């Protein structure tokens, strides 16, 4: 088994008296495609927030590549190799697709602070952004403002921004939410073309997507891990069926 890239130990979080994450632990070896499912309100997105540092955990620890990220704010965690896409499109609406991608590229290369040279001069950066746009199927929209794009196209960019970061661990929060079947299969194609070394943790409501993509799946319920296993095991579990799949199908 390959080396563990990401580890979360005993994460806990309460909002008021409501415990939304309860002793959640997770180990992901390099290259793992891991699914995260559970009914609405199971605490899936909160778990992402705890991993990326957007929400501070009450207890527990997060490691990436053997390093503890506990005291690090979200931006430092991103630089350490975490990237995420959001459940709701979370972009830079006044900028073009090209600029959105260039922004992510600039941060990846650590040149965001450069103030003495015009951004236009960084031709390699724009080139890289353009190549990424091509890979993401956004080549036709390069010069368009994000706010003028159709929802599905924005969604592609949402995932694209995270991909551009070339992270160690990629967190995708319902990447296909609200997309048409064609768009969904486009996203699936994109995800299957990702480098094998990339570790992926994905929240998804579309069971066909998750069972087709994930090697292992964690089922959350009321903030707790109900089960972790292969797609076959999850499908075969009576408890999961009762609590979740039964309700969905």
């Amino acid at each position, binding site marked *: 088994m390959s080396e563990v890239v990401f580890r979360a130990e005993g994460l806990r979080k309460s909002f008021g008296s409501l415990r939304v994450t309860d002793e959640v632990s997770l180990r992901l070896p390099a290259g793992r495609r891991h699914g995260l499912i559970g009914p609405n309100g199971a605490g899936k997105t909160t778990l992402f927030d705890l991993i990326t540092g957007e929400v501070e955990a009450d207890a527990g620890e997060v490691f990436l590549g053997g390093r503890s990220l506990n005291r690090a704010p*979200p931006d430092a965690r991103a630089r350490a190799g975490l990237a995420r896409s959001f459940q709701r499109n979370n972009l*830079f609406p006044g900028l073009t697709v090209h600029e959105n991608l*260039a922004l992510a590229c600039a*941060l990846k290369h650590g040149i965001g*602070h*450069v103030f003495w040279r015009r*951004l236009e001069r960084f031709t390699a950066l724009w080139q890289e952004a353009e190549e990424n746009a091509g890979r993401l199927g956004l080549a036709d929209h390069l*010069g368009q403002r994000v706010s003028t794009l159709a929802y599905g196209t924005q969604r592609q960019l949402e995932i694209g*921004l995270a991909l551009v*970061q070339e992270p160690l661990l990629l967190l995708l929060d319902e990447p296909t939410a609200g997309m048409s079947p064609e768009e969904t299969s486009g996203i699936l194609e994109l995800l299957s073309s990702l480098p094998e070394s990339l570790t992926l943790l994905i929240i998804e409501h579309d069971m066909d997507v998750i069972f087709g993509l994930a090697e292992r799946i964690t089922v959350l319920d009321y903030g707790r891990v109900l089960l972790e296993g292969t797609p076959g095991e999850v499908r075969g579990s009576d408890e999961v069926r009762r609590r979740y799949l039964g309700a969905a199908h």
Partner: protein
Amino acid sequence: MRERDPIQLPVAGLLAVIAVAAWFGAGYFGQELLAEIAILAIFAMSLDLLVGVAGMVSLGHAGFLALGAYATAGATVFWGWPPAAALAFSVAVAGACALGVGLFAVRLGGVFFIMITLAIGQMFYAYFFKARAFGGDNGMSGTPRFDLSPLGLETGDPAVFSALMLVIAGAVYVALLLLVRSPFGMMLTAIHQNENRLASLGCPVRRYKLAAFGLGGAIAGLAGALMAQHTGFVSPDLAFWTLSGEALIIVILGGSGSLVGAAGGAAVFVMLRDHLSDGSFWEGLRLSGDIATHWQLVMGLFFIAVVLLARDGLYGRLSWLVDRVRSAWRGRGGGA
């Protein structure tokens, strides 16, 4: 590849031409106005960097203007420094204080950022108001202007001084424009639009905001130093929050985030104030000249109108107009 903000440089060029023409045409009083506009433009552009570019709405920016003005006044009058050295000192003092303030202020957002900058600006006001060394609420006079006599220039001459101010304003503009168009400037724009996402892409957002706040404060300090030189006089009113409010109005009037718009807004603002408070202007409109005494009423209504109606400001409207004309032109060309 990309044509972002295509009218920025043409508008700046146009404004420069107008400024030069005005300089040649202006009499004694006109030169004073021109210098005032240039200095206010520097101040407004420094605020635009915070408000329009990075999205940090400060209602205490005048505090740093006053710091710069008092630093120059103190250094020249008490220590006998040459004005140029005092100017550098002003920039350093205002910038350093802005960094210190920013360390705390940039943690807050929205209306709370407005409130904390208001409080801190008023802190400077209250200090200068009571500071006996600086003349308290009477202020202090005696700040000298640059000594350019080795170049054969007499800065006491309003025409020379206003030309100098215009050149400095132009230089500040160019520097800020380059900054805004650098990767750092792009990050500030992105912070304005979506701070949290930028952080999740790996940008240390607070540090960037702090840098912008410090730089904005330093440039405000520069404007303050020039203002002290221009009038030879500093008073606590320079720090009062209403001046920060007026600068915000100028930024919105010109077009928030457009830099050159802030400079244009400063010009419109000064001219308007000058006209509204002049009885003959109202008589020219076949109205009573007495209205001039109550010019602030008109100004207040104007402020409200600007905020309610301006949306993207004069610059934004111009941009829109140019866009329309262009596409109409292209449409006709395509049809022919």
